[in-house]
């Protein structure tokens, strides 16, 4: 897998965003300073603890997820679409790289951007409130899986997009609403109606936010609302991670298939 060709493409994709921090790393850093200042400090001071955590601490995992997956998605979709738009993706397509190598390089690099942004947001949060890591390995695994998942979805977005507006629509009108209703700023346990919880559980973001929250804070809404039956309730985060991992592999398989048939890439 780690052929010279793969490493060359992976490196190219990493350099593309590393060399432009004003476009890639500064915006989420500044945005999250605002989030923490407004939601955490100004509004959070008037909100009671949620699930036993100060509000500003409770929202850290969700903001990390929001930034990480948005950037992973944005990076992959932009890189693919911009390459299509200016046709320089031909440099990759006419190379002897396998379709699997191409997809893993694009997904891997975009996931790295998502992870870096996630760390930046956590660091910004750390400036406002002390943050510990309760389940480090689980946290790392979850972050890798969800950034790869959204990088993989970003590739699909980059392949189906017809113009740059399509990319904006995907990120702003689909991704962000799902994240905001993914229990970033509230706990599922605050819902009093069962249908509210059940409706939320249809949102895949809930599982991602919950998994990261479990990794960072040790708290899981999914355990709290009892998504799994009695004796298995505590396994909810692991099951979430398993399902997310499966979803990620499926999305990457779709990516490889789309590259193979040349969807959006070849005539």
């Amino acid at each position, binding site marked *: 897998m780690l*052929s*010279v*060709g793969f*490493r*060359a*493409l992976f*490196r*190219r994709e990493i*350099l*593309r965003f590393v*060399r*432009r921090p004003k*476009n*890639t790393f500064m915006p989420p850093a500044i945005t999250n300073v605002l989030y923490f200042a407004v939601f955490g400090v100004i509004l959070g001071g008037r909100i009671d603890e949620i699930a036993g955590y100060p509000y500003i601490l409770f929202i850290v995992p969700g903001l990390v997820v929001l930034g990480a997956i948005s950037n992973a998605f*944005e*990076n992959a979709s*932009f890189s693919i679409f*911009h390459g*299509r*738009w*200016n*046709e*320089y993706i*031909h*440099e*990759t*397509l*006419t*190379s*002897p*790289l*396998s379709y699997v190598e191409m997809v893993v390089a694009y997904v891997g690099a975009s996931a790295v951007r998502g992870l870096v942004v996630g760390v930046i947001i956590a660091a910004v949060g750390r400036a406002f409130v002390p943050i510990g890591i309760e389940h480090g390995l689980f946290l790392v695994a979850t972050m890798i899986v969800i950034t790869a998942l959204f990088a993989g979805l970003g590739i699909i977005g980059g392949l189906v997009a017809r113009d*740059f507006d399509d*990319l904006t629509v995907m990120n702003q009108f689909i991704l962000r609403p799902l994240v905001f209703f993914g229990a970033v700023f509230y706990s599922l346990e605050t819902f009093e109606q069962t249908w509210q919880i059940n409706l939320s559980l249809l949102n895949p973001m809930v599982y991602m936010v919950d998994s990261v929250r479990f990794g960072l804070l040790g708290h899981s809404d999914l355990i709290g609302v009892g998504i799994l039956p009695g004796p298995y309730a505590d396994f909810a985060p692991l099951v979430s991670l398993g399902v997310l991992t499966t979803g990620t592999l499926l999305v990457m398989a779709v990516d490889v298939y789309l590259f193979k*048939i*040349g969807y*959006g*890439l*070849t*005539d």
Partner: protein
Amino acid sequence: MPPAIETVDLVKEYGDLRALQELSLTVEKGEFFGLLGPNGAGKTTFINTLVGLVRKSGGEARVFGHDVEDDYQQARDAIGLAPQEFNVDRFFPIKEVLTHKAGYHGIPASEAAERADDVLKRVGIYDKRDERFDWLSGGMKRRLLLARALVTEPDLLILDEPTAGVDVQLRHDLWDLVTELNEEGTTILLTTHYIEEAERLCDRVAIMNEGRKVTVATPDELKERGSDTIAVRLASAPTATPDLGPYAHETTVSGDRLEVRVDDGGATAPRLLNDLEAMGHEIADLEITRTSLEEIFVDLTRSEDRTVTRSSAESAGDDEPPANGKREGEREQEGVA
């Protein structure tokens, strides 16, 4: 040793339009092969099928024996492509563009950097190595496309109209370079609108029209297929058009000038002179004009009805559309996300 390129009944359809129609073509290893044809003839579609930018609808296509779809990695590794369009990575200085491309072909970073320097020197833009593509002049961009094709040291170099719109000096530089490469053993496939270019460079040429192969021959063979014109100036204008033998396909008279179209001007001229003298005409001057390759090309690609094919629809434009359906002028550098 398998041919450098071998296609059998290659078909590419876009809905009802057939861009390639049962195209069978063989380019031998080491050849300098030309593809000639009017705009929309299918030349770029043919090339893009080989490199994986167009998916064939039918038939077979192999590069050095490797199927372009089943063995796409081996096929693509053998090819260096300098396309018509400026499809170069805008994010990086041109030297890095080249090292990336070499890397994709499995060339380790240090060697890739050396090769990038070498090819930039070879095409004469080494001093621009730290510039980004958008800052280069048109001629330099064309040179970079060639450098990018060469950096992987391909066995098959495909040049899609490499001299379109370039100045005379650059054209000659490119001609010298590709001739040198061919002499070093690189197989070269060249598409061009310039007949002179094909005549000067190519061992063989294929003439394409509306997705079909019209003919394949050496430039000399093609020229032999055309008719020559013997122009004779007579001492006095004839009163009527001389009735010559069947060797004269067409005879026209204009004052004291007689023009006779024949198959082989050199071989026919003595007989024509004898016949004219036998008719009582006195010969003052004689000139034989051989058919140019360009005339033969026009003759071979002339079509009575080009309104129903994809190629005709595009002949008013430039050539086949790019994969995403945009033209060069529509592409702009967008912001970075």
